[in-house]
Every structure is written in C-alpha cells, then in structure tokens.
C-alpha cells in the first residue's frame, strides 16, 4: 500500500466563465515523481494553481497529507508544500542568498533574525540547485536559466514533504536540465518526498518520472507508468502531430518520442 501525499478528487476550476479543469482526480504518492504532460492550454498550470489553493475550486476536494486544503492555514500549507512557479520578474534588487532565505518564511516568526537552521537550509538549497557560487549576485543580474534555478532553490529551502514544479527546466541548458531531473528523482526516491512536475519535454519526463499523467482539455486522458502512457496513437492524437513516434532509448530502455519526418 502506497502512502498518499496528495489526493485530488473531481477537481473543477477555471477563470471567469471558462472551465479549465473538468473533474480531475488523481493521487500523488510519497517517494514518487509524477510528471504532468499535455498540450498548451490543457490545464497543467491551472491544475497546479487549483492544487495549491491559488485558484478557488468550483467543486472537488484536495487533500495534502490527509488534511483538507481549506483546513490548512497559509503557513501550514507552505510548510507542507513548496512550489517552483513559472518565471516571475522581480521588482527589486535582492541578493540570491536573501532571496532563497525568503523560502524559510513559513518556518519563521514575523519578526526576528533568521535562525542558523534557516541559513543552513538556504545554503543546502543553493548547493542543490547549483547556485552556491552565485549567492552574492543580485537576482536582477541573473540570466533566465539562473533565475529559474534560484526559484528552484527557494522552493527547496522550504524543505517540504511535497514539491510541485511548473516546468522547472524550461530555460535550462541540457546539462542543468539533466541535473535538475536527477535531483527530483533523488528527492523522491532517497528522501521520500512527493514530487509533481509539469513538463513539456516528453523524453525527460518519461526518463525521470515514475508515473506520467496526460491532460487533455482539462481532464485526465491517461495516468500510469511511462510505458503505459506513451502510446503512439494517443500522443499523435493528443498533440495533433502525425509525425510523432514512440522510440525506446537504447541506453536506458525507457520510452520517448521522436519525429518521423
């Protein structure tokens, strides 16, 4: 029996008059990386907002570690679940270290200096995101990829059992993309955290995620291991691309996609 970290039950949510999520149900287990894939506008980011209470649910329920989302205070939620959001442009100049230290906010009182454990957590997060050497730089002087890693470091500094990421590798070079996915797998498998990762890169998602969830127009089209989910017919139809083929990576034996022409 797997430990359920997040339980989403018949989630419906949207903006103004538009329904984006239509009865999405799934479970995220501790110790796994669940990849969320789907075409643009299929509701991936909306799902993340609905799961974290940023977007009110029209109906349905979310449970984190067995507790209903609305029963959690803002700080309690932030101690349970960290989110690496999509790029937000910072207004003011903070050093990377000060910025990552803000990830400790849910663990700190409103006033008072940061505790040594807060500094240690921030340093650890910086190291894991590969940002230690840039910790004195201004966040406004970072490249897009570096800024994305700073956002990851801030989420890691929260040291939560749940970690949600919205395209964490979108602006990274191949080396860093690989390192980040390796880190996610390590967080889940070695440290028993539950990781939910939105991704556009089917190959990386299939390589590093334990399970994949395919979203189409706000509903779950398929949910299972990469081998189960990555079916040529389904993917061709889902992405509207007849040239899409499923191929096995000869080095790892995991499925992925290539273009036939």
């Amino acid at each position: 029996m797997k430990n359920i970290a997040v339980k989403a039950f018949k989630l419906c949510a949207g903006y103004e008059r538009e329904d984006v999520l239509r009865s999405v149900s799934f479970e995220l287990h501790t110790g796994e990386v669940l990849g969320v894939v789907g075409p643009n506008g299929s509701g991936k980011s909306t799902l993340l907002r609905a799961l974290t209470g940023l977007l009110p649910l029209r109906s349905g329920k979310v449970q984190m570690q067995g507790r209903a989302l609305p029963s959690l205070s803002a700080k309690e939620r932030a101690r349970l679940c960290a989110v690496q959001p999509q790029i937000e442009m910072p207004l003011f100049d903070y050093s990377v270290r000060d910025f990552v230290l803000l990830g400790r906010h849910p663990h700190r009182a409103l006033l008072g200096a940061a505790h040594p454990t807060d500094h240690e957590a921030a340093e650890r997060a910086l190291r894991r995101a590969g940002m230690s050497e840039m910790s004195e730089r201004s966040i406004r002087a970072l490249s897009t990829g570096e800024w994305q890693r700073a956002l990851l470091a801030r989420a890691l500094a929260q040291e939560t059992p749940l970690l949600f990421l919205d395209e964490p590798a979108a602006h990274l070079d191949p080396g860093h993309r690989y390192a980040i996915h390796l880190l996610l797998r390590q967080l889940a498998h070695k440290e028993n955290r539950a990781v939910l990762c939105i991704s556009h890169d089917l190959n990386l998602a299939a390589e590093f995620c334990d399970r994949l969830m395919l979203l189409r127009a706000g509903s779950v089209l398929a949910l299972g291991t990469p081998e189960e989910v990555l079916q040529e017919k389904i993917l061709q139809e889902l992405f509207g691309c007849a040239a899409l083929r499923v191929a096995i990576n000869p080095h790892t034996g995991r499925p992925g996609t290539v273009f036939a022409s």
Partner: protein
Amino acid sequence: MSTLARLILLGVLTLALLIIAVCVGPTSLLNFSSLWHLLREGASTPELQRASLVLWELRLPRVFLAAGVGANLALGGLLLQAIFRNPLAEPYLLGLSSGGALAAVLALAAGMTSVTWPALGGSLAVALLVLLLCRHRVASDLPSLLLAGVALGALAQAFTTATILRFNPEALRGILFWLMGSFANQGWSAVALVLPTAVIGFIFTLFLHRPLDLLAIGGESAHHLGVPTHAVQIMGIALAAALAAVTVAVCGTIGFVGLMAPHLARRVAGAPHAVSVPASLLLGVMLTVGSDLVARTLLVGTELPVGVVTGALGCMFFLALLRQKR
C-alpha cells in the same frame, strides 16, 4: 559599510537635521547657543524664557509635525510600491488627497474654520470607496484598483476646482496654500494626530516586512510561501490610506516624499524590507524636515508652501534617476 552601520548613520544624520531644524528660523531668539543654554540651565533669564516659548510653541511642534508627516508618507509609499508591484506607486495615487481636499474646501465654503476633521473624513471616504469598488478583485486585479483611485481622484478634483471658484480672493490664497501643503500655523494638536499614526504605521509595516518582500517578488510566490496575500494587501492598502489621510488632513498635499523616500531607502540600505522600512522612515523624515527648513528660510519675510519644495526636489530626483539608468 554594513547595512546596520548605514542605518545607524542615517539615524544620526536624521537627528542632526532635526536639531538644525529646531534651531533655524525667521526669529533669532532661538539658535544653537540659546538651545544649549536652555537645555543646561532651563529658562533662567527673560531671554531664555522667550527662546523657550519659541521652542515649545513654534519650532518643536512644527519639526515634529514635519517629521511625522514624512514618516507617514514614506511608509505609505513603501507599502504601496510592494503591494502594487509598482515602483511609481505612492500614497496619493488612491485619490486620497483629492478626496481630502474636496472635503476641506467644502468645509471652508460652509464656514468652518478648521479643515482637519473634514479632510480626514474625505480622504478616508475615497479610500473606502475605492476598496469597496474593487473588493472582489483586489488580489487578482491590482491595476483596476489604481484606476479606480485615479478616476475618483479626478472627479473630486473637478468638484474642488468648481468650489474654489466661489471663494473671494483672500480666502482663495489661504486655501491654495493649504492645498499645496504647509506646516505653518499648526500646533501640538496636529502633532498628536500625526506622530502616533507614524509610530503605529512603523510597527505594522515592520511586522509585515517579509510578506512585503514576497509580495514585491510576485503574488503567486507570496501565496506559495504562506502569505495570506489577500489579507496582507487589504491591510497594507488600508494602512497606507490611513497614513496618507491623516497627512492630508493636517497639512494638505505634500507630493513626491512617498515616492522618493522608498527609492532612496532601497538604494542606501538595500531592498529587503527588514532594512528598507526603517530606512524609508528616516529618509521620509529627513526629506520633509529638510524641505520645510528650506520652505521657511529660502525667502526672507515670507514662506513657500512645502509642497513646492518637495515637488522641485522630486523633479530633480527623477531626472537624476533617469541619467543613472542610461
């Protein structure tokens, strides 16, 4: 220089400016040496008694008033810039000053002599109206809140102008002086209104320092890091509105301080609000006390509205900023 050292230096400079502002003015009855004697010996001679009178009845209330107003405006500006994620936000943007001015002018037209309470009511009324208009959208749609403030402000201004036209020239002079901002002819009662709000505002803002950091970075980030964003935004806007309303009520519109002080503070002490809150407060105090000092000593025999001095300073400040950015 460490951040703490900078803050301490800023505090020392502020204190020095306050002492200078107390000792300089149109009458030479009170100056540095008479203040020194007064502090050491008390009002022992007739001369020192007169100096004491100037100190307690004229200079001290005026300097304290200017200091409190500067603190109010700076803290309001700092709050709004973080909450609206807009470096150009300032306390008067919510239509407050226009609302306060309209109420004040209407009160004068109705024959009242003191405008403090009508102006306070007018500013708060506009702030409430803006918040009510946007109560469902504050978190998701901050720009519409600003637009509502600007729109209501413009309406209030139109009514103010229409009302002013009915005054006789002598009354017109007085009301224009008030509209442009002035610390003249105010006593301890005005100080009693402004200083406590500055202290309360400072404490509140200090408690909000990390939520403000997070809001300035982004609304989504703030939410994910455990900030009840909606509540903090409403609280911050209401606080900034109250601070500005008290200011308008006591001394009219003093522009640019709420804009300049937070910018300077971030430059001097750094962006984290743990340091930019105290730095803003001190710089706001320095800007208004300094501007008032210039306003009452620049021209012999007459006094400039302090709003004119801060306006000129603001212009130079932004031109300098523009040059540096290039």
